[in-house]
């Protein structure tokens, strides 16, 4: 039996990697994937905690998070496609028309 602390630790590591990914990458698609990584890590933590309680609540929560993630991906990709239509380059650093 693996202690659930291992799982939560792993989820913390994955979450942190995801956070760093959001910050160091310039391609919105990759940034977005890093965000998915964060959500995924959170899911893992939820399931691990749920296993400790022996309750299925956590899994239901994870299910909701997954659904939301799917919806978010759909909208997010639509936004990315929309901006790509207007300008052919795709780096978030180009998106600084509005500042200061």
């Amino acid at each position, binding site marked *: 039996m693996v202690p659930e602390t291992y799982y939560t630790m792993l989820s913390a590591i994955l979450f942190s990697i995801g956070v760093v990914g959001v910050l160091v990458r*310039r391609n919105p698609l990759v940034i977005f994937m890093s965000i998915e990584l964060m959500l995924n890590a959170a899911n893992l933590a939820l399931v691990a905690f749920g296993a400790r309680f022996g309750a299925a609540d956590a899994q239901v929560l994870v299910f909701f998070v997954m659904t939301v993630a799917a919806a978010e991906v759909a909208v997010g990709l639509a936004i990315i496609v929309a901006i790509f239509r207007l300008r052919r380059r795709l780096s978030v650093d180009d*998106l*600084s028309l509005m500042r*200061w």
Partner: protein
Amino acid sequence: MSKTVWLIPFFPLLGTLLNALFGRWIGRHAHWIAVPALGCSFLLSCAVFLKVWRGETFTGDLFPWIQAGAFTTAVTALVDPLSAVMLVAVTGVGFLIHLYSVGYMHGDSGYARYFAYLNLFVFSMVMLVLAGNFLVLYVFWEAVGLCSYLLIGFWYTRRSAADAGKKAFIVNRVGDTGFALGVMYLWVALGTLDYGAVFSRVGALSPATATVIALLLFLGACGKSAQLPLHVWLPDAMEGPTPVSALIHAATMVTAGVYMVARSHALFERSGVALDVVAWVGGITALFAATIGLAQTDIKRVLAYSTISQLGYMFVGVGVGAYAAGIFHLITHAFFKALLFLGAGSVIHALGGEQDLRKMGGLAPRMIPTTVTFLVGAAGLAGLPPFAGFFSKDEILASAYHRDQFWLWGLLLVGAFLTAVYIFRVVFLAFFGGPRMSKQIAQHVHESPLVMTFPLGALALLTAVAGVVGIPSAQGTAFARFLSPVLPLAEETGGHGALSAYALLILSVIVAVAGVLLAWLLYSSRPLSAEAIGRPRTWLHALVFNKYYVDELYGVLFVRPLLRIAGFCASAFDLGFVDGIVNGVGRLVVGWAGSMRRLQTGYVMNYALATLLGAVAIVGFFLSR
């Protein structure tokens, strides 16, 4: 009485709304709304005053306004002798100045806007005076500031006017913030803001608390009443139309600080220290501004410094505990300073907008009513008997003397001398001697229309006779007795000074007359040469050194050092130091804003970094607890 009281502010408010919303269609006829509105207010004020005279007072809520838990505040009006006197003065002087404006602002493109602002100001000022608690006082304290700001920048196409408006705003902001904090602290300390409750419970405050609150409130008063070091905005405020200078920046709004201190005298007395601060700030300002007034060449700026100086006198009055004397000077000052400003306005009007004393002279024969009334005003300001200013100023001096504040008394006495010098300097330079304006302008010099000279006459009459109620007697002046339900009669506590009341009176007269004589010797005993005026800035020195042998003695002994001090104050302290602080703080904030906005790089990554930083900090914070 309640309906009458509420109608007083109602009429100007109505006038504001009509002129603001329909100004485009009303246009040149705006005064047909604004002036009658003020007239009604004035008549109602008089009616209220008569009732108060017969011993009635009135407190009433318009509606319960703010409730927070157990704390409730209503829009309360309080009519007692003090507010009744102020009401009559505000609406009366306001009415005359409205009337005068009809002539002065004739043909201005913003005619309706002007009257809308002016009515709004009177409304706010009336509410400020009527306020029955500190919250309403604060609200209209802000509102009169806003009107002042709008009217200073009235001729916004002039860059200097817009800048002056901005400066007035920033400086007043400093004071008002202090005032707001004071009101808040008062609320925390006593749980109420109603005048009656606050003043009856003031004993519950520790003297230290009372001092802090009183000083915060006084900071607000300093801003509004242009006392050191927050006086810098008032001279610049002269960029506004002259009737505005007369009404707001001389007669009414700037005296709100004095009114507030007198109104909350119980609080200031509880502190003790705060009263001394008030008196000393007032005394120093009085002398300081008077010296600067000597060196100014712009007729309105002389009057502006004079106003600062006279406000200092009022603060000394209330600061030494002679509240009625302070308020009495407030009223008489409202009359004669409004008169002087309107007279100056009449001159400026006649000269086609010229404000420079160096380019005036010899106007007396062409503008007899203006000259006569201006002389009356000047006499009032200089404190020549029997004009009102004599009685009121002497009352303050005597009070300071009798309370053993000899240093203050000395400051004020010197100030009184300088006052007489600078105001008669203006009289001689503007109205007497040879004309120094250009030919074309000289040809067009004309007396102002009746609508402008009538207010001059009325104010001159008031200046001449208002002193009657201030004739001292054994039981104090009639004015002080009338106010005694609100403001305690001055007690003659000290009496250690060697001089009797009559000796003081005579001394005041001597000082004033000496000042007038000095001015005459300097500026009018011989014709001024034109070339002296051709050299700006040094003309006064040149005048003193080269032209008048008689003056050399005075010059060496007195005038030159004084001018130096005045010049130093004007340049180094007034313009350099205080302005530097005001501008510096402003620039600091703006510069800060400029660098802070650079953080907003527009890059998603930076924004996410900030988010992460925040998350790390929050988690770390909770982890450490």
